[in-house]
């Protein structure tokens, strides 16, 4: 009898505990989202309302003028175009990573392990050490202030190669052998068997690549000398620098950069978090 009521007590307190946990998390969640909410609300307010000494929560006057300003006067179309070019080029890099991952996963060749460790070692190199030498090298090659110079250094990445390799080792060899026996060249085997089987990891990596490309800041900042090569991040940092007082405009710019990523993230969050899970546990 005592056991049963103790069980009931446990179940009831457990339910309250769940609610307490939920409420704490909800409050924390609101606090964490506060900057984004404020950013979005401010983006739709006219500048006068944003800098008034009596702040308002919801816009008294909803306006799109900040966003229009971004594209008509602040060259955001140009920055967007450049950013998309960077993103597109990163996808080429993704393809190269997949090729390397496949090479390391499915072939036994001399020096394979040593070369793979070399690749992994590059993951430990901090950007600060390489940024000056790479800049000097690109300068010597005449690639400063070019899109190539912006895209080339970060084109491939050891982490991505690692993930592809881990995944591709799980592809059954029989399928590859069958294709080879049918006379397919190695490249065809790659394109027509390996790639379709890697759809899931391509999805995860593709999303991460897109996000990284969209957010690219440091390298475009260093390499681009004139405005025509700036990406969205660089443009936004300029907005803050030169138009320091125009907050509604800055909030509109930030919203434009942040909201698409948040939307993509919400739709694909299962994949992205799984992708980071694999990385975290390695």
């Amino acid at each position: 009898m005592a056991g049963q009521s103790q069980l009931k007590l446990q179940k009831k307190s457990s339910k309250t505990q769940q609610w307490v946990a939920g409420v704490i998390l909800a409050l924390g969640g609101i606090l964490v989202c506060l900057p984004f909410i404020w950013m979005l609300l401010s983006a739709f307010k006219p500048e006068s309302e944003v800098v008034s000494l009596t702040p308002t929560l919801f816009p008294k006057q909803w306006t799109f003028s900040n966003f229009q300003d971004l594209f008509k006067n602040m060259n955001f179309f140009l920055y967007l175009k450049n950013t998309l070019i960077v993103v597109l080029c990163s996808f080429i890099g993704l393809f190269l990573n997949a090729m390397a991952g496949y090479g390391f996963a499915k072939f036994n060749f001399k020096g394979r392990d040593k070369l793979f460790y070399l690749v992994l070692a590059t993951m430990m190199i901090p950007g600060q050490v390489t940024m000056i030498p790479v800049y000097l090298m690109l300068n010597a090659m005449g690639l400063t202030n070019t899109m190539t110079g912006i895209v080339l250094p970060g084109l491939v990445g050891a982490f991505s190669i690692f993930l592809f390799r881990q995944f591709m080792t799980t592809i059954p060899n029989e399928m590859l052998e069958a294709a080879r026996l049918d006379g397919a060249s190695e490249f065809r085997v790659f394109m027509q068997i390996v790639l379709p089987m890697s759809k899931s990891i391509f999805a995860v990596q593709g999303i991460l690549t897109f996000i990284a490309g969209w957010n690219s800041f440091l390298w475009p900042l260093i390499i681009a000398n004139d405005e025509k090569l700036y990406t969205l991040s660089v443009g936004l940092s300029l907005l803050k620098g030169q138009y320091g007082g125009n907050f509604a405009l800055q909030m509109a710019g930030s919203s434009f950069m942040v909201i698409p990523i948040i939307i993509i993230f919400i739709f694909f969050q299962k994949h992205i978090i799984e992708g980071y899970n694999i990385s975290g546990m390695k």
Partner: protein
Amino acid sequence: MKKYLNRHTPYFFIAPTLILLTVFSLIPIVVALVISFTDIDLAGLADYSSIHFIGLDNYKNIIKDPIFIKSIFNTLFYVIFGVPFVIIISLAIALLINFGKARIFKAFRVIFYMPSITNVVAVAVVWSYLYNPTLGLFNNILHFFHLPSVPWLTDPTMAKVSLIILAVWRAIGLNMIIFIAALQGIPKTYYEAAQLDGANGWQQLFKITLPLLRYAIFFVSVTTMIGWLQFFEEPFIMTDGGPLDSTTSVALFIYHNGFQLSKFGYAAAGSFILFIAIIIVTLAQFKLQKKDVEY
């Protein structure tokens, strides 16, 4: 021809990435080391013959440079105060989310993770506005409660704290995910056995959960530490190292000297010192990791 290609296939597959990584990751380290022994600057770029080999002069000068010393102090401040906060908060949130059984707890994962993937520049711009002394939301809220304004970005010490708050906000999501994954790896049988023995929730937390999370906590500490040793975008956008170089991190110092003052050799010396520091921290991690005992 086809046979040759087929036999040497793997080399063709790994060649592009290997070449790119060698050129843009490995060779630069050597280049950085070499130029740190020279006085290369803008003039040197234009005319290679004007570059001189000056031995260890850059290193000798940089460790006497007051701004460099300040930047090291600032970076250590960030790491020593920020990393514990990140661990405690991410762990607490991970524990709460893992504790929750309803499906809405999965939605919380998404909410707390959002700051991690959004653009650093956009976030820094938004937080600059939030921290604005007269127009920012934070001081407005304080005024609403009749509390005095806080000099978020204008006071040298407070500025560091403000940047830490921002960095912690961004770091919660990623580390929370790592902790959740680690939590889910703890066998439920341990908890069941403890419950049979009469242990309550808190005892289970301190005697089972936390000890088993030792490795995850360690991993999060080290990766966060290494990440924060390279703290750059936030001070760059929000304060440009100010006020009075109180928020200049080592990475920002390197950027200033290299790309604004064009003292490439000098900055390279600084970057190499940073590199050594990171290597030491990483090696310490490997050594301590080997000592860690599996349950």
